[in-house]
């Protein structure tokens, strides 16, 4: 045991990451046993990845918010209003001068959503940072205001159907990369990961810093490559039903489906979005001044101020970023359902906060990782779909998830105390 943990230390992998992955594996294996092998199947894992995407995107932003010792209770309602506005923009506003099914519609719609998300988030951040109203109150108000606003957009009417390109963002039929492009994306991810590791090692050697042993480096690289390849393999093993495949080929103008051709799902576009956002947010958090200041302010607001950091403006930026991410989630969520309803995203604020917290983000501020929040979102969604699959009633599902949330934070605190002593 001792030697195992010292070996683990040499790899410099965070014990928390290893622990969370172990928990996730345990949940998957447990449900797989209970459901006689229905849980860990390409189909279910694909669905899981698509269902997690919307919450995962918002959870990355919530990490920064919580790291800065704030909270955002408005994200679910913000998602609702942004989805409604984007629904109206793509079905009513844009078609009036671009016509229906214009190739630019989805991009303009998304851009409008992002701008509005930035503006609303920035407004809330301004009230918090410059007017000094606690984030809890401002965003609790936001929760009510934006949900009400979502109803107002269409007087409660659901907007459907959405633009046919826009709905691809949700990862539904046709909204996936397919076999070849999934491998291209996976290959790019592997190359980027290996390149980043090599660059970091070269840099450390140049300055004569301690390096981790080569075997540890190779082990981590191997695990990364295996994880990416495994993900692509699994998602590529989920076939598109013959009839749906024929329809997709026709709408893409490719003619009839060739004899014996099997179309597979591969990575959903929404999952690609999550991965890209996760990478960008990780780089922002670790390697930009903005990210450094977010963590510094969360660790010690006075020190940050004395170091000349404008923490009020930083608050505005963090909430504006959160708003923009809500717009991305709103696009994913409404595209997946192929409609925008004014109750979309209800209770998502709690899922998002829970994902960040289960992923190791400390409400005391200063601590939290992007990958942790995404694994946290995956843990929550796995529990929920697993229980639904087993036939656990919705009421019991909430009870279990609530208990898991509290338990996760408790275990995390035990772990932290253990490390400080």
């Amino acid at each position, binding site marked *: 045991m001792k030697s195992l943990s010292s070996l683990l230390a040499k790899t410099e992998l965070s014990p928390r990451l290893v622990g969370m992955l172990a928990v996730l594996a345990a949940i998957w294996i447990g449900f797989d046993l209970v459901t006689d092998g229905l849980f860990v199947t390409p189909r279910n894992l694909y669905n899981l990845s698509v269902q997690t995407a919307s919450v995962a995107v918002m959870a990355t932003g919530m990490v920064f918010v919580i790291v800065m010792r704030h909270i955002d209770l408005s994200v679910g309602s913000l998602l609702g209003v942004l989805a409604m506005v984007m629904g109206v923009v793509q079905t009513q506003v844009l078609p009036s001068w671009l016509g229906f099914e214009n190739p630019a519609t989805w991009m303009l719609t998304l851009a409008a959503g992002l701008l509005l998300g930035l503006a609303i988030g920035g407004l809330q951040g301004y009230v918090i940072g410059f007017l000094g109203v606690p984030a809890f109150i401002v965003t609790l108000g936001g929760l009510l205001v934006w949900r009400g606003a979502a109803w107002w957009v269409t007087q409660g009417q659901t907007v459907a159907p959405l633009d046919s390109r826009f709905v691809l963002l949700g990862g539904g039929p046709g909204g996936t990369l397919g076999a070849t492009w999934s491998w291209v994306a996976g290959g790019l991810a592997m190359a980027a990961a290996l390149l980043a590791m090599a660059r970091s090692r070269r840099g450390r050697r140049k*300055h004569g*810093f301690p390096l981790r042993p080569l075997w540890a480096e190779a082990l981590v690289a191997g695990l990364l490559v295996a994880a990416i390849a495994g993900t692509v393999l699994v998602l590529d093993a989920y076939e598109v039903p013959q009839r749906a495949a024929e329809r997709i080929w026709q709408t893409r103008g490719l003619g009839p489906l060739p004899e014996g051709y099997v179309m597979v799902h591969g990575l959903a576009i929404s999952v690609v979005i999550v991965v890209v956002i996760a990478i960008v947010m990780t780089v922002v958090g670790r390697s930009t001044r903005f990210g450094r200041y977010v*963590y510094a*302010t969360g660790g010690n607001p006075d020190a940050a101020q*004395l*170091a*000349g950091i404008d923490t009020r403006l930083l608050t505005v930026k963090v909430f504006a970023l959160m708003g923009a991410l809500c717009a991305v989630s709103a696009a994913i969520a409404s595209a997946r359902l192929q409609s925008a309803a004014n109750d979309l995203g209800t209770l998502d604020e709690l899922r998002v906060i829970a994902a960040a917290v289960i992923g190791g983000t400390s409400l005391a501020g*200063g601590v939290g990782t992007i990958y942790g929040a995404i694994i946290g979102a995956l843990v929550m969604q796995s529990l929920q779909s697993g229980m639904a699959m087993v036939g656990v009633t919705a009421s019991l599902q909430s009870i279990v998830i609530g208990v898991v949330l509290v338990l996760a934070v408790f275990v995390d605190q035990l772990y932290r105390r253990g490390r400080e002593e």
Partner: protein
Amino acid sequence: MAEGPTPLVEMRGIEVAFGGVKAVDGVSLDLYAGEVVGLLGHNGAGKSTLIKVLSGAVPARAGEILIDGAAVRIASPQDARRHRIETIYQTLALADNLNAAANLFLGRELTTPTGLLDEERMEAETRRILARLNRNFDRFSTPVRSLSGGQRQSIAIARAVHFDARILIMDEPTAALGVQETAMVAELVRQLKAEGIGIFLISHDIHDVFDLSDRVTVLKNGRLVGTRRVAETTQDEVLAMIIQGEPPSSSRHPREGGDP
């Protein structure tokens, strides 16, 4: 200390009030290059508040600050840094969740041409600086929360001296330190003084202050009691000033240094 040259810093008639209570009430003092001025007084005498005016952390309600004889406006920590005033705060002002290099360069990060943080260069610089200050320092990748008081102090000091400070403010620099580390700080103060840096040293430990300072200034209840040259006074006299809030009646020394 020659009286001829212009003082490095002059603070004139500084006044700070917190909700009607005058924390600093019309205090004037000055500091010359290569000089250490000790600030003494009880808790709440206004030492830290006065010095925070100079470091830009607290706004003054009245009074002016002159650097090299020219009036300057210091409204924020950035302003102070621009005038090469660096401060080591009593609380050290470190972000506990970040590592040594991140703290040392906080607010002044080094970046690569692409605009991203240059962690390696910052760590290399940090290793170089800290090797000079504290040879035992070897924990560069851990958050400073898990470091000892002395190690944290080393980072706070390194941060203040690394960026070519001309004026250094040290607020209780040895409060959290052991004997060996206190000696290290004393050595550093002498070295910086020799380099021509002006230092304000705040302490409640009169021995420390007498050991390192050229002059001492005593405050009580936000008011200036007086300034003495260490070479021309005794600890007893200064102690009496701290306690009574006025120079002892038998004092033969005229008040000096404060008034223009």
